[in-house]
């Protein structure tokens, strides 16, 4: 290469750098910033909480309920959450298989819950009100629905983000079995 040709290429280098940076920034701006936020609480003990009963005739939910030796599911849901409707039949099937599911209702009211569970079915053994998302935030959960697998000692084993579908049953059952 002739020296002046190399010099010419070096002169173009800054422009190329700026252009490639521009492309990176432009792509970053155009893509929606939607991250799935994994909880950092997996592997750690369930935070302390005790919620009053949300449904008449069913107990509330407390952290102590999860230390009884039996692995359980902790389902974070709400009657105002449309995707939550989709997972009720799947949760009902898991309940029929003998899985104990505790429900924590976010920003909810008892009449709204009665209507929701009356319409779609009630897969929960116990339901508590988390009106200020306190447990949800302490769990590192960022939306509804989310389902946590808790082992018999009250340790969080797994976080399932989003609707529990038919194809998630096997995985959750295996995790519950392992958590025994």
């Amino acid at each position, binding site marked *: 290469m002739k020296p002046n040709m190399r010099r010419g290429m070096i002169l173009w280098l800054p422009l190329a750098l700026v252009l490639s940076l521009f492309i990176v920034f432009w792509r970053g701006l155009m893509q929606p*910033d*939607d*991250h799935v*936020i*994994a*909880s*950092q*609480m997996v592997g750690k003990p369930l935070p302390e909480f005790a919620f009053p009963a949300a449904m008449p005739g069913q107990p509330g939910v407390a952290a102590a309920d999860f230390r009884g030796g039996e692995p359980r599911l902790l389902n974070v849901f709400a009657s105002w959450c449309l995707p939550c409707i989709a997972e009720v039949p799947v949760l009902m099937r898991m309940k029929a298989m003998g899985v104990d599911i505790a429900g924590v209702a976010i*920003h909810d009211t008892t009449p709204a819950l009665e209507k929701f569970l009356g319409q779609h079915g009630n897969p929960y053994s116990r339901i508590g009100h988390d009106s*200020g*998302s*306190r447990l*949800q*935030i*302490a*769990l*590192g959960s*960022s*939306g509804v629905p989310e389902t946590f697998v808790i082992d018999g000692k009250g340790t969080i084993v797994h976080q399932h983000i989003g609707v529990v579908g038919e194809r998630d049953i096997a995985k959750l059952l295996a995790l519950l079995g392992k958590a025994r």
Partner: protein
Amino acid sequence: MRAALAFAAALLLAGPVVAQDHAEISLADPAREQQALDLMDTIRCVVCQGQPVSGSDAPMAGDMRRIIRERIAAGDKPDDIRAWLVSRYGDWVSFKPVVKPATLPLWLLPLAALLGGLWLVMRRLRLRKR
């Protein structure tokens, strides 16, 4: 006159009886409220992910503001509250990146760019002198 005085006295005596919802209502102590606001500005809303919890209308952002104000009011340090949230959601929830091996490029790159630029300018000046 006596009625007006009685009314004024009643006003003075009537403190805030109901517990205030600190999702929206400021703390009474301005210094603590400022601490809370500064923290809220640098905590990311996990629902509207580009926004800090201070500027988000999502109910969950309000829940986070409430927790932050309550903890500040109880005497917790902002850095401890930030660390608590990071222990739940990861570094991602904080707009203030910490220095650790994974974030070193973030801190070193601007420095490297500045040094590189300085070197280029120095070389240019030396060339021109010749």
